[in-house]
């Protein structure tokens, strides 16, 4: 799938308390979480996001807690893809699992400016920022299977079906 949209930028070490403060974790409705996304550093950030927009972020994005509410909130705002210099481990896995495309491409982040347009196709492994094309590495097989299934819930459904039919899991 090809994504296209405007770029919103954040710096290094953006933690999950900044992405979605814990006081809002008493529920998990994606729409409600989206309204609070990035609240400690950018009031009403969701108002600036158009469906399909990109987040371009620095090192260690999503560090801190394991709250999956963080990638859920970002996805529910309408962000199509997060491009980072690097990701914190739990955030990266959770984003893949809930179907939020994420990719590490430090050179593209370094070249990007707030408001630039970007296009990306991660299955094909490329990203274009302000007319410049970047190649991005392919996902490992385990990750690709989850992405191709459309997230881990669909992947689970498939494995459950295979178990029921007696096929090897």
């Amino acid at each position, binding site marked *: 799938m090809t994504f296209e949209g405007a770029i919103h930028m954040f710096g290094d070490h953006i933690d999950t308390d900044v992405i979605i403060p814990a006081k809002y974790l008493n529920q998990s409705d994606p729409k409600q979480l989206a309204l609070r996304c990035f609240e400690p550093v950018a009031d009403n950030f969701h108002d600036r996001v158009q469906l399909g927009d990109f987040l371009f972020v620095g090192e260690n994005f999503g560090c801190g807690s394991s709250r999956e509410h963080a990638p859920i909130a970002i996805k529910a705002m309408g962000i199509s893809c997060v491009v980072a210099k690097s990701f914190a481990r739990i955030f990266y896995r959770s984003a893949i699992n809930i179907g939020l495309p994420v990719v590490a491409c430090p050179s593209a982040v370094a070249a990007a400016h707030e408001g630039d347009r970007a296009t990306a196709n991660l299955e094909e492994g490329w990203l274009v920022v302000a007319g410049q094309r970047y190649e991005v590495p392919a996902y490992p097989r385990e990750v690709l299977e989850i992405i191709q299934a459309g997230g881990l*819930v669909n992947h689970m459904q498939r494995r459950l079906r295979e178990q029921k039919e007696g096929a090897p899991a």
Partner: protein
Amino acid sequence: MLGRTMAEKMLAAASGRERVRVGDVVTVNVDLAMANDITAPLAIRQMRSAGANRVFDPSKICIVAGRHAPFRDSHFASEVAFVEQFCKEQNIERFFGFGEGMDHALIPELGYVSPGMLICNADSHVCTMGAFGTFSVPMGSTEMAYIFVFGQTWLVVPPSIQVTYDGELSRYVTSKDLALATLKELGVDGARYKAIEFVGKALTGLSMDQRMTITNMAIEMGAKTAIMEPDQVTSDYLKARGASAGTSYRSDLDAVYERKVRLVADDLSPMVAKPHSPDAVVPVQEVAGVKLTQITIGTCTNGRLVDLEEAAEVLKGNKVAKGVRLLVTPATDIVYRAAMESGLLNILQEAGATINPPGCGPCAGIHMGVLGPKDVCLATHNRNFRGRMGHKESEVYLCGPYVAAASALTGVISDPREVLA
């Protein structure tokens, strides 16, 4: 053939392989799968939306959902009731929902943790359990749903960083100061996707409670997991709690490390992390005099009995400075009861502390001490990200119990070695 690290040996065992290499992707069997008040509801809903009806093995699941009990609002109350109902339906007996405290302190006390286990928790501080020689990794809720159903997940075999603590800690310098000094050295992403192995003479003299403070903060260094080699202290702790002896793994002498870091305990001062990052660490002298409005002692980092003992040692017979709130949150009901029976709670309360019910307390800004815009808090917690404990303009400094208690007496960040001189 090159030697192997504990991380490599444990992942080989968990994946049923003879040998694994750094970078290998392995499917592992999970010995203990966990989630909490915030992450379990989402995991259960994801499990249901996949059409799964049964968990893989109810005896291998533990849910600690009372970390913020008593509940702040009806949303929290109904989410925990939802989790409780799920555990009943699934015959999950290890459900805790109403004031038993928080998972990382509770489950070792209950004897659920043994060396060699592979533990997954939908909570980032599961790395705390590495103090027992386990391989413990955090996950998101959807991944936990998968583990609840299949009892398996995939992991990449991580490279290891070896952190050696030489020498001996001085008076009023604790394992929290070792953890903060290590954060200063590695930074918040110095161990990203890696295992940290903690070793050294300064470590062997520490109790399990004190060791857990160090492994607890490995996630703040970005680590995938933290591991300590089990020893006599470990087996005494396990025996006293009726836990299985498990399987102890040791790294080979010629094991390959990506990086080795060495810290000399004797050289350390009490340390403090400044706002808004846990790696903004300086010796306490450099921030002495910063005016405080709130001091909090507790959490999975420093909410165990030894931490309350250290605080009481400083506060006994003294009074908290005017204009400062001191909040103490025992991590579990077991800690609470022991502190009550030994008279610690009396000492703290007479000094002017407010004793919170067992659990996470105000650490994540959910309840029991949320900060306003002008608050400056000194906390024995593990995170001081912007806005974490409440208002986005509030400031949080991190430290160990001695610094927290000494500063409570003066109302400003203080060096316990001076206050108690």
